[in-house]
């Protein structure tokens, strides 16, 4: 597999990456850019632990080839608060996205490993639909597993984030 040069735009920063274009984005984010938001869970797009936003939509980085996202706007957990501020035209970037803040206040995480996907998917949901019903939240997050069983706390937190 030949190495090629790609331009990757992550959280507003441009990176030049020499790699096999079939390399899943997750491994570039983890190993080349040392980002910790997107993380390995299954490598099969089944669990949501690797979720990032590409052009404002949630995407599974573990099966998305580098070549497919070169030049597009990628947002990771580390940049989701800034992304939110941009989407809502906020004067300043908050410390956390409202969903992160609500999950923290609800003490939702146990091991916390799933929280990347939960935050990214919820951020996408609230961006598309600022006032989702409980059923819409459950449906949106049904593709994001949590093995610790924190779903009830997550649900409360996302509902609260939608209200604020």
């Amino acid at each position, binding site marked *: 597999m030949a190495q090629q040069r790609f331009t990757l735009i992550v959280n507003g920063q441009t990176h030049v990456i020499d790699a096999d274009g079939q390399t899943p984005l997750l491994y570039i984010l983890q190993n080349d850019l040392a980002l910790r938001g997107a993380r390995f869970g299954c490598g099969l797009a089944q669990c949501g632990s690797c979720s990032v936003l590409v052009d404002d939509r949630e995407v599974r980085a573990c099966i998305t080839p580098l070549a497919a996202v070169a030049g597009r706007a990628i947002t990771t957990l580390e940049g989701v608060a800034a992304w939110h501020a941009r989407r809502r035209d906020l004067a300043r970037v908050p410390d956390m996205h409202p969903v992160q803040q609500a999950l*923290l206040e609800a003490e939702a995480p146990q091991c916390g490993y799933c929280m990347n996907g939960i935050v990214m998917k919820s951020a996408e949901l609230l961006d598309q639909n600022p006032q989702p019903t409980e059923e819409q*939240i459950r449906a949106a997050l*049904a593709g994001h597993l949590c*093995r610790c069983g924190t779903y009830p706390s997550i649900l409360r937190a996302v509902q609260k984030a939608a209200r604020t």
Partner: protein
Amino acid sequence: MRSPETSSDLLPQAARRDFLRAGGALVVGLSLAACATPEGSGVRSGMRALPLRLREPQSTPPAADRVDSFLVIHEDSTVTLYTGFAELGQGTTTSLLQIAAEELDLGMDQIRAAPLDTHLSPNQGGTYSSASVQRGRPQITAAAAEARRALLALAATRLDADVARLSVARGRVRARKGGRSVSYGELIGGQRFELSITGKAPVKASTEYRLVGQKHKRADLAAKLTGQQVYIQQQRLPGMLHARVIRPRGQAAYGAGARVLRVDDSALASIPGARLLRRNDFLGVVAPLEWDAIRAAQAVIVEWESPPTLPTSAGLHAQMRAATTTDNVVLERGDVRVAADEAAATVVQRGNAPYQAHAPFAPNCALADIQPEGGLVICSSQDVHAARRGIAALVGLPAEKIRVQFGEGAGTYGHSCYDDVAQAAALLSQLAGSPVRVQFMRADEHGWDTYGPPHVGEARLACDANGRLVAYEYHGWQHNWSLVETTSQLAGAAPATEWPPVAVQGVNALVCGGMYSIPSVKLVNHRLPGLQYLRGAWLRSPLDLAFAFVSEQAIDQLAVQLSIDPVEMRRRNVKDERWRGVLDAVAEASQWNAARVPGRLGNERIRRGRGVGLGTHLISHGASVADIEVNLDSGQVRILHLYGALDAGLVVNPLTVEHQIEGQLVQTASRMLLEEVHFDAGRVTSLDWVGYPILRMDACPAVTPVVVQRMNERSTGAGEETMAAAAAAIANAFFDATGRRMEQFPFTPERVLETLKAV
């Protein structure tokens, strides 16, 4: 641009070349875990603002009977707490900090926990049985009390005051209000106590507690929500290679292991730097780039021996029930047969439980750098001291030459593949002559787990005309746990061996009727030959869901026969006020109505039901109520609401325990409705989240956790003790809804329709 050197340039330059060798002991200049980021992975922070200051590492664990092993007081009166317990996402680190801060009269912002490390941490035993607070609280309380006594003695001299007149706040000692004061830092900052823990230093009465017993937020969650936390899956060692193991997709029988017949690694020539490494039947690949390591593992062609010896998941329970077993009586009191013959009502309840997987949300991962003189392994073992012994034996080094550091990963709920992957990393590092990082892929973790073993249970219960239990007989069929990690087994270092017969692997006398006063009891284990089955180990509340599923359905059968409300039936039989307490608490929280007519809620084809159950694991007291819905046409069961009440003695941090109950209830819903490891005659076939589904957000019930606080009782486990109760409550709710009893879980639509045939 993209090379392993570039990657490692992004990471701190700790590690490999910094090994110092002093007095034969391998010492790492700084904790790698602590270096990885300012916060550090595996670093269990008290407050993030407090810098982590660690003592010099040593190759033998500090003695568990010395104050200095647990506590270091710094010049600024802040404290580093060393404990032997792993943070697995359950939040106990916060509880342990509360305990130490309470006894020392510190603020929670003045104390921080050190990472778990064989070269830093006292050995308090592994992080098992939800017992970190149960075992840790007396030890840490005693160490802190001893320290406080010494500090007050020093302060009395310094302030020229009577010890009895001294008071402490935030680590500052005063003789009287507004008078002179001296801080812990001024008294002993940076020096050692050099004291044994006598257990005789005065400790606070629970009425004096201001931190213990109060809700306290965890300090580690902000990092986990923002990407600052470095999980073990995200740690890197400078100069390391990425590695993957190569195994058959899904395990065969434990005793069969996996035997290589033929290997062809010619395809690796086209993958830069990829190498196949092998010891006997243990295979792995290394490569400088992670994606190349993944591709390399797939590119190697291996022909494995495939003995078709398994009973298949469909034929499992019939084979278990018919097997030649090794039997022992766990408990016998009175004569159950005579008592049952004279009873007003007698019932029999059978039940089967499947293999269930730990299935941690992130597959296990480990990093290792094994050199000829010694080595470092970073892993997520629940017992770093035991892991070190296993790794040392595998790589042929004395245990004290191996340093094992704990790195926090995803929740594990028992013995998943964390020790297996640690051994794989150590072995691959040794074979490669380089530091390596081994990340199990999803199929490795799902397919080579040490599963929670399956169970066949038969209960025969009898009561008198007033609903008082008079006879309780339980027979359980199961196999013991697997002692040898897959890596050691495949590498030829150790043959498949079962755990010695410790009690927790068999019929649990606490869950099987132990919460009731019953004159005649007989509990019998029928132990299966484990090498013929899948690998097994403890999975959160081991076997308890199965025991309660059988036992508590039998109690309900008696209640139905005698037309006694199921909660009232249990009230008449619980053996003490603590069982009565959780039963009453859950009845109150769920607004249990004894007059309600069963099975008359919902509509004609979607029936609603409500059930109650009691249960525990090794200690503590759990009670649960379940509201469920059964679709008679589709066989779909939906759990609407689970209530769980837990009496775990003095609960140090009710907030984390509420979250533990929430997780227990949701995980129990998942295990009762969905979770089952499937296998054919050759191998396990449940290899991912499609083959092994778990509960999702769209089907998640509402949950109501209830902590029954007992400020004057000792603290006991709180991580698994409502699960058995909830499993039973769900089963009893099913009967309430349908008038039929399930005899096997999970409650898949096919099984439900089979059970409902006549409805």
